[in-house]
């Protein structure tokens, strides 16, 4: 209810802003729901005198559609990496020159100049996460170090495996395992993927993207696809201490949400200030503590809640590749759909 109220109030505020009663020194921030800590916005206002108005959305598609329709009145938004790529291509973003900001030095070198924004012109990091697989170590003595375990399970895991119902992430994991390029358009790659998934299916007990933490904690499955945030929650739950989030040598699949400035933003300078402000370790820690996701600012660790700071689920070990999902072409999307529908026919 409170959230609804906030959304209603902020959209009312925004429509005022659009109607010309726009006060200088205000920032219209468009972010995912449950993703923005109030204390962060208060702290920003205290330090800069700029008031932040928050409005929320629940999917990248919604955000893209809004920005495409133009004239949104937003000064900041938070797309995921694959949609950020589309927005750059479609010319929907203002340049922010993040690389030259004072606090940019805190960003982990692994996440500087990412593929979706190679010169760090448009985006600054917000939160990130990974997708991999988990094993119940007390029920199954599996090998966490390779995706072979997940795609070609043996022994006790056969018939006790849970896999996501939607293909995106599992498909990217399969690319990593088979050494294929992301967004491949080669027919032989598609055939290899199809063979891999058909081979995995007899071992699968359930295809579902919901309730994965519950099923691994109550032992319905002994191995499962999992998001790191979910699996952090599963492990810290009662009876979940033996849930192990795996970092296979082939890599994990990642998502990365960033702050961007939509084209036509009225308060670009204030938006840039906010970007720089968020990259400061103690501020970034506020966001992670609130959202329970990882971030790309290693120095934020001392400011994190202890259970977050120590969570292996949130820390990708050095040397483990992270493959970030990309926005792929039509041929790829159609092929993946075909493989998946055939699999579940």
């Amino acid at each position, binding site marked *: 209810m409170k959230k609804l109220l906030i959304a209603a109030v902020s959209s009312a505020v925004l429509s005022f802003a659009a109607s010309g009663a726009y006060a200088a020194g205000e920032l219209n921030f468009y972010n995912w729901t449950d993703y923005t800590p109030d204390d962060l916005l208060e702290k920003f206002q205290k330090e800069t005198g700029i008031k932040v108005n928050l409005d929320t959305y629940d999917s990248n*598609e919604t955000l*893209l*559609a809004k920005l495409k329709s133009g004239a949104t009145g937003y000064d900041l938004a938070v797309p995921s990496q694959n949609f950020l790529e*589309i927005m750059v291509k479609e010319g929907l973003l203002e340049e922010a020159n993040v690389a030259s900001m004072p606090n940019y030095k805190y960003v982990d070198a692994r996440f500087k100049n990412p593929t979706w924004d190679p010169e760090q012109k448009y985006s600054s990091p917000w939160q990130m996460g990974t997708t991999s697989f988990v094993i119940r170590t007390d029920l199954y003595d599996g090998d966490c170090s390779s995706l072979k375990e997940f795609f070609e399970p043996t022994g006790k895991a056969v018939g006790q495996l849970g896999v996501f*119902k*939607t*293909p*995106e992430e599992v498909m990217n994991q399969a690319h990593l395992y088979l050494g294929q390029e992301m967004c491949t358009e080669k*027919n032989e790659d*598609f*055939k290899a993927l*199809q063979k891999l998934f058909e081979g995995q*299916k007899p071992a*699968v*007990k*359930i*295809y*579902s993207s919901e309730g994965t933490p519950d099923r691994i904690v*109550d*032992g*319905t499955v002994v191995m499962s696809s999992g998001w790191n945030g979910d699996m952090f929650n599963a492990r810290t739950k009662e009876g979940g201490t033996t849930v192990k989030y795996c970092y296979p040598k082939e890599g994990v699949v990642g998502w990365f949400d960033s702050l961007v400035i939509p084209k036509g933003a009225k308060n670009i300078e204030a938006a840039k200030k906010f970007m720089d402000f968020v990259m400061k370790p103690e501020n970034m820690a506020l966001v992670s503590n609130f959202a329970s996701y990882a971030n790309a600012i290693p120095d934020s660790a001392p400011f994190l809640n202890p259970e977050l700071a120590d969570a292996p689920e949130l820390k990708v070990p050095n040397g483990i590749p992270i493959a970030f999902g990309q*926005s792929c*072409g*039509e041929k790829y*999307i*159609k*092929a*993946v*759909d*075909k493989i*998946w*529908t*055939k699999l*579940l*026919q």
Partner: protein
Amino acid sequence: MNLPQNPATRRFLGLLPAWLVIGIFMVMPMMILLVFSFMESDPYGGVDPGFTIEAYRQILFDLNFDDELEFDPVYLIIIGRSILLALIAVFGCLIFGFPVAYYITRQERRVQNMLLYLVTIPFWTNLLVRTYAWILILSGDGVIEQPLKSLGIIENSLEMMYTNGAVATGLVYSYLPLMVLPIYASLEKLDFRLVEAAHDLYASRFQAFKQVIVPLAKPGIIAGCILVFVPSVGAFIAPDLLGGGKKLMLGSLIHLQFASSRNWPFGGAIAMLLLAFVMIALLWQLRSARKRMEESG
């Protein structure tokens, strides 16, 4: 205020709100879907302008990974499975629903009302919640298995969850009231002196049931079958939660097209196909109802 005097105008104005509601909330969304199904899909979701029957072609023929167009039974298999499961659900509902409806009609008026009220109670809770309850009942550590295990009757899990049986159970449970109520409605009007007359004429219990009760309950049975079949064939929640998602059903297939596959036209085309099945079922009911009317004069 002047009311229009012409009765036709008045009837039109009186029905206008109903027409508007049906038009805006039922016909329009379906028209949008119909139009979308003939458009080109946008790789980022949504549709692009242009007319194509691509989406309908895809139901039967598809390019394979050697770029040859071939007959592809994938979707026919999914459609077949959905219809089969819906028929099983209808059959299950009939088996359980008929005795219940019959029992209710044989009670006193006051008890009847009470029992009918009890039949509708599940509708007060969200379907999703009720289906989740079945996970608790059927799962490995659930209400059924746990006592059997602690009594030592079974050792290993019965593996009831994530099977077609679990889906059928979920469907029967979800739609059972839709079978009970129409059968009750037609049995309630049944004159039991007819049954007594049948017995007087040396009909056995089974003969009386088969030749007197069933024919008189037929309108209710048919209505109940349709009411159960229609939502079952497009069911989404029970197959998804109880079936483990290993075998796609029409509802999940459509969902997949609008979500991760981003192929709205194809999703629209399958939705239209589903609509066609439902229409056929309804037309069949309409025809048999008309036939009955003619028979009874």
